């Protein structure tokens, strides 16, 4: 699974993206966020307030119950501020 991070979430995690292999029971966006957060350090810092974390799976917005699978591109970022 490919993870990508943007804006202050990228800064807090410390890298723009990475490949990860979460445990088999991590099958939803919500579970993935909890698993990442449990890594501590920059991850815990970046994900401490999930109300300001948005997720896109394969470049489509996805809620906490949306499925994630090996091979997906999962993006984590703050609420958007373009325009």
């Amino acid at each position, binding site marked *: 699974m490919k993870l*990508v991070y*943007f*804006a*202050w979430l990228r800064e807090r995690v410390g890298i723009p993206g990475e490949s990860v292999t979460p445990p088999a029971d991590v099958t939803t966006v919500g579970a993935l966020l909890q698993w990442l957060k449990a890594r501590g350090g920059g991850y815990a810092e970046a994900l401490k307030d999930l109300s300001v974390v948005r997720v*896109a799976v394969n*470049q*489509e*917005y996805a809620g906490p119950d949306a499925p994630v699978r090996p091979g997906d591109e999962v*993006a984590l*970022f*703050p*609420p*958007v*501020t*373009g*325009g």
Partner: protein
Amino acid sequence: MQAEDFDVGAEIAALRQGATGSGAFVTFTGIVREYSSGRADGATSDKQLTAMTLEHYPGMTARTLEAIEVEARSRWPLDACLIVHRYGRLEPGANIVLVITASPHRLAAFEAAEFLVDWLKTKAPFWKLEESGAGGHWVEAKAIDDKAADRWTVAAPGPAQHRKAG
């Protein structure tokens, strides 16, 4: 989306070639302001900006802009519409975003342009980093933008009906 600047006049002129049935053209141009736009919590801040950096998520940005345009065309009778959004480091006064809509009906052209800008602000994966003497500061999303975008999530069969409720 592009890093390069755009020329509003040239973009309008180009769009007009393909929209000869349209009597109404509306444009929205967003530019980098000289001062910080204030914080999401409403506190005013008058920091003078030295630059604004727009980060984006390339693949998703393209998909989102396309989806937003398709949605606008399904809601209003548009002969043409254009979205240009820049990314990268921009100085005060620089263009950030351009939206143009062309329609036979001016209310449709106005509403579609507002819709496109509202959706851009709340759905397109761009993030603004303001740089000032005090350092860098990620702009926070504003509740007022969500509210503006929410205007369009109620069933809106067309401009007249939408306005009737106003």
